[in-house]
């Protein structure tokens, strides 16, 4: 039981609710189509083309979210270009961070 300023979170209640929802879904699915033939309808249909071998049908990692990457090229290209694996550039970032933070603290003052 976590009390937060505007709400609470109790996992046990959530789990019970989830189990109830699963049971309801299961009963709905029980009343579904009875004439489902497993062997035939679960095969991949490739427009009548010859069946591909295993490994060719597996979607490799670099194909997933390709569109996401293409859509955000404006953000991604400069970000990836900033990640030069050169150690000197990392140290430039460190020096720049020191300079920026010290200027901010110097301006902001304090007690």
């Amino acid at each position, binding site marked *: 039981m976590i009390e937060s300023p505007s709400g609470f979170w109790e996992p046990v209640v959530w789990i019970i609710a989830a189990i109830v929802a699963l049971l309801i879904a299961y009963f709905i699915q029980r009343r579904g189509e009875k004439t489902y033939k497993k062997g035939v309808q679960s095969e991949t249909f490739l427009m009548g083309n010859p069946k591909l071998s295993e490994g060719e049908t597996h979607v490799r990692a670099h194909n997933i979210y390709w569109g996401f990457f293409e859509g955000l090229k404006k953000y991604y290209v400069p970000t990836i270009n900033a990640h030069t*694996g050169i150690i*000197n550039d990392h140290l430039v970032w460190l020096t720049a961070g020191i300079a920026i933070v010290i200027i901010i603290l110097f301006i902001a003052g304090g007690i």
Partner: protein
Amino acid sequence: MMEHVPLNFPFLAAALLVGISFYILIFKRNLIKLIMGIGMLASGVNLFLVALGYRAGGNAPIYTDVPEGPMVLPVPQALTLTSIVINVAVLALMLTMVILIYRHTGNIDSKKSRILKG
């Protein structure tokens, strides 16, 4: 005896050493020069630490046949000793890794010898 040192000269020297070593770390691509820069950075910090402990006209803080007079602070000297040994250890490990990088990639340029990026 350097009783009257103008404008904190040793502290200024330490700060400038740190600055020069940062210049090396930023602009030198040769890994051996990079390690030299880290060594200079460590010597700048050690100079700063040891200069903190100096007391005008002080002797070394060792009572064996010491002449009369004030003694310089012992704690910064102990800190400097520790930091020197730590620096030696770090440099030894870095040089080992540079040897291995040279064995693998054939050069010690931080741009040409990198594999991981992005």
